[in-house]
């Protein structure tokens, strides 16, 4: 999947969970600035896994700081077998 599609998908998920317009979310936006706390991040991760058909390691997702961090991770992760 091209990275811009991943970015669009992540932006849509974040906008939904944070209750923020997608127009206000850029790749550099920090998740903390969107008001995404740890419990909201669980929602984001599970939604992203379902949408992109992959598993995001519990060792990795707590380190996502920006929209781009999450996008890059998903872009580089393999598809589920």
């Amino acid at each position, binding site marked *: 999947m091209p990275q811009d599609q991943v970015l669009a998908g992540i932006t849509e998920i974040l906008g939904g969970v944070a209750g923020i317009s997608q127009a206000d979310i850029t790749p550099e936006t920090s998740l903390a600035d969107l008001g995404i*706390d740890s419990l909201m991040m*669980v929602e984001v991760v*599970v939604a992203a896994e379902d949408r992109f058909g992959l598993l995001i390691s519990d060792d990795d997702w707590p380190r996502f700081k920006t929209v781009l961090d999450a996008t890059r991770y998903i872009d580089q992760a393999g598809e589920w077998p």
Partner: protein
Amino acid sequence: MVRIGIVGAGIGGLSLALALRERGLQADVFEQAPELTEIGAAIGLAANAIREFDRLGLAGELTAASTIPTELIYRHWRDGSRIAAHPVRQDDWYARQFGAPWFGVHRADLQKILSAAFGAEHVHLGCRLVNITEQADSVVLEFANGRTHVADLVVGADGVRSVVRRWITGADDMVYSGTSAFRGIVPTENLPSLPDPHAIQFWMGPDAHLLHYAIGGAGEAVNFFAVVETPSIWLHDSSVTEVADEVPVASFRGWHPAVTEMIDAASSPIRWGLFTVRPLLRWYRGRVVILGDAAHGMLPHHGQGANTSVEDAFALAGLLASARGDDLEATFSRYQVLRRARTRKIQRSSQVTSALLHLPDGPAARARDAKVAAVPQDFGWIHEYDVQRALEASGVVSVGHSRNEAR
């Protein structure tokens, strides 16, 4: 008739056996223990599991053995102040909101009710699974006592240390959480310092918390679960280890007297390592599938380990019953799709909750305290879940008969 073998006669395994029977399918249950004895601890049954047991006609027996908490209360670890409180039994709030009650019940009582409902004929004790062999159209289970059993399909309900899971994934997917717990059951009359003894309460403090709720038909005892952020590495083969007598209470030095009094009164110097199962890619291989802790072992901080096992059991039973003659792989795949995202979300939410319960006094704890005021709204999705509705929504036609209608 399809031959179904269930490995493990815990809450998940017995629930599956009962759910299958309700759908007209017979299973054999294999349990490694020589007799059915649950650990000396309690469990909180939530609406998402109770509505299933209710359909089986078990609500009366469960009610007689259980306590419904008055409220859900969050307290400060040292001064005991009420940070937030939500009604449970008060105004029948929880049952009205989620369609079924919340019960505190001793695990042994629950197991007795489930095993009595299923009967002993198809429960095989002293059968520790040592090997699984897949044949062209069956699976052979081999047990340490020399017995073997041939089944058309096998369900591993054998807990966080699942032998069946290891066969499916080929790996050890169990993870030590870096937290451990002391637990105990204390007669309510031995807890003079405890405010609201019939509430379910979280006492939250630095690097630790204590949860308790009452159990028994009259709330005559209090079950507690006290979690600490040690040891950082678990060095024991077993999930439990003995500690010196003073260790449990010393781990809560400086906490409110109600907390130390409770831990002291239990005097059971056992430390339980808390383990989880990392989210798995696959819950099945060939004719073999897993449910409950075997598939998604989680931290207990939403009180959902057993409740999600019950959900798994009824979901799997519904899918198997509606797929007779179908390709087994397709059925297992549907089961995995139905169950995986929800259980993964609860697993991770429990993990995040662990850290939130253990914040030191300060700005982060104050932000957390503001959030626990909204717990019934934020976590309603866990309790309102209805397996039968989820099955219907996924396109599986519900057999939908209750025990009474089936007669």
